[in-house]
């Protein structure tokens, strides 16, 4: 009885912990092992070394996916942070209708990527969408067919992704701005600094941790992006807007290339880990230091 009482907290956590160990870490281990085998349609447990990784990096399709991820991530981060910083600073200027404006900026976060993709697919529709509107108001030569143009369709994913996530980045920055001590700003004003230089020279540099968080969130979102690609372009035209997440599921469930798909999944996992592990480490250090 005493033993039970003493160990009750551990017993309560144990099932969840076992589940996480098995379904997260065990599964990643399994995927990693399969990536080192010849598995095709079914898992084959015979060791085959790093051949799947060699095959992966020799595939032009994987290179397209990685390049697209690079383009998407870069633009997604720059645009979201730019919009987030500008809007949060502007909203921080004692705007009376702040609540309403914030609600409007943030509602896209409540929508799924499938809904977002569906809406933007219609807006960017090359014959019925924006293009038609431009024609009707007099710009008859206006052309906007990125959605069906190889090499351009990846940018439509950027447009929709930024629309969905930038409001959230704004909210994170706004929370960061609100935590900056008002005294600092007042003191700088007394010294005659302009509002612009107060923000660029004093406030924004103080918000380095917020920038870090925002970048980590955005990189993480972009590596995982799957739904939005499927709903907007389905990786097309052809495979021109493929991304690693789409590549992985296509290989695993469409092409019966289980080994190759696992190798690509491990590449994604490794990339995320390379960003998250140092980030978590520094966050925990900060938490420790704060104590």
């Amino acid at each position, binding site marked *: 009885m005493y033993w039970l009482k003493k160990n*009750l907290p*551990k017993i*309560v*956590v144990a*099932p*969840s*912990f076992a*589940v*996480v160990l098995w*379904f*997260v*870490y*065990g*599964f990643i281990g399994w*995927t990693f092992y*399969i990536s080192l085998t010849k598995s095709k349609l079914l898992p084959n447990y015979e060791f085959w070394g790093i051949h799947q990784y060699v095959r992966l990096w020799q595939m032009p399709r994987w290179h397209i996916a990685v390049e697209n991820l690079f383009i998407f991530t870069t633009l997604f981060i720059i645009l979201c942070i730019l*919009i987030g910083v*500008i*809007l949060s600073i*502007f909203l921080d200027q004692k*705007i009376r209708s702040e609540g309403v404006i914030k609600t*409007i*900026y*943030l*509602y*896209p*976060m409540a*929508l*799924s990527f*499938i*809904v977002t993709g*569906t*809406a933007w697919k*219609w*807006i960017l529709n090359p014959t019925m969408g924006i293009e*038609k*509107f431009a024609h009707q108001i007099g710009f008859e030569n206006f052309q906007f067919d990125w959605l069906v143009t190889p090499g351009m369709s990846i940018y439509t994913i950027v447009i929709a992704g930024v*629309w969905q996530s930038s409001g959230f980045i704004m*909210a*994170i920055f706004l*929370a960061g701005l609100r935590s900056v001590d008002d005294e600092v700003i007042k003191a700088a004003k007394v010294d005659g600094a302009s509002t612009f230089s107060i923000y660029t020279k004093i406030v924004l540099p103080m918000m380095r941790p917020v920038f870090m*968080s925002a970048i980590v969130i955005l990189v993480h979102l972009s*590596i*995982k992006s*799957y*739904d939005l690609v*499927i709903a907007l372009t*389905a990786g097309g035209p052809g495979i021109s807007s493929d991304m*690693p997440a789409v590549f992985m*599921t296509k290989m695993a469930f469409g092409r019966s290339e289980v080994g190759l*798909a*696992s190798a690509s*999944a491990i590449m*994604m*996992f490794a990339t*995320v880990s390379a960003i*998250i*592990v140092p980030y978590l480490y520094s*966050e*925990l250090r900060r938490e420790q230091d704060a104590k």
Partner: protein
Amino acid sequence: MLNKKKVSRIFLFLVLGIFVFYYITPLYVMIVTSLKTMNEIREGNLFSLPNSINFESWKIAWSGRGEGTSDVFLKPYFFNSLKIAIPALIISTFLGALNGYALTKWKFKGANLIFLLFLFGTFIPYQAILLPMARTLGFLGISNSPFGLILVHTVYGLGFTTLFFRNYYVSISDEIIKAAKVDGAGFFKIFFKILLPVSLPILVVAVIFQFTQIWNDFLFGVTFSFGENAPLQVALNNMVLTSASVKYYNVDMAAAIMAALPTLIIYVLAGNYFIKGLTAGSVKG
């Protein structure tokens, strides 16, 4: 006379206004398109208003065109999603609360490491677990059933719910707990009588977060279910991607709004909790 201050104030509102316009336009386009007839869509443009308010496409998106047509419509899938989301969010929230409590108020050796492993688990790209999960669900005989998706969402929601409650309980004073322990109150008594009654704010955050995650999920739904067992987002995607010769943009937009409505309503009613969940769910620590 316009002074400098006034000019910069006008500029400020101009920029804020442009972005209001940017964020609201897609919603506006979705709503007006869903209320138009196909003729109006062909003749007008994205932004033109419908001649009359017409809910016909909403009816079709929800319950189809009637007997004998093979169109996908949302009604059955809407209930599929509810059947998956409600049990999964109840189980994962309850377990998350217990975990958060045990990990903070009954600190044992290794508690921090366990938390770290939970935390890291919330970041993994799900592609790294899809294949073994598909095999496990097959082995358990629950692939392509609501039970399979309930399991998946519970398992991968646990990290988030544990994180929410852990961070909330850390800030609750240990003194009260200590006093209760001295009085002889046990593990569960303290949880149900002392902590749970003050947990309402974080409970709301966790429930909203989990509901939104599960409701908006597409990857798990499309991988582990098909046909009539699919959740709503998968059905919406199938509906829009249909290869039928005539595309009904009005029906597509009505369907998209319907799929978004539950989470939008929650956002409008409980925006603060909604944002808190998102922030805590991605900015850990």
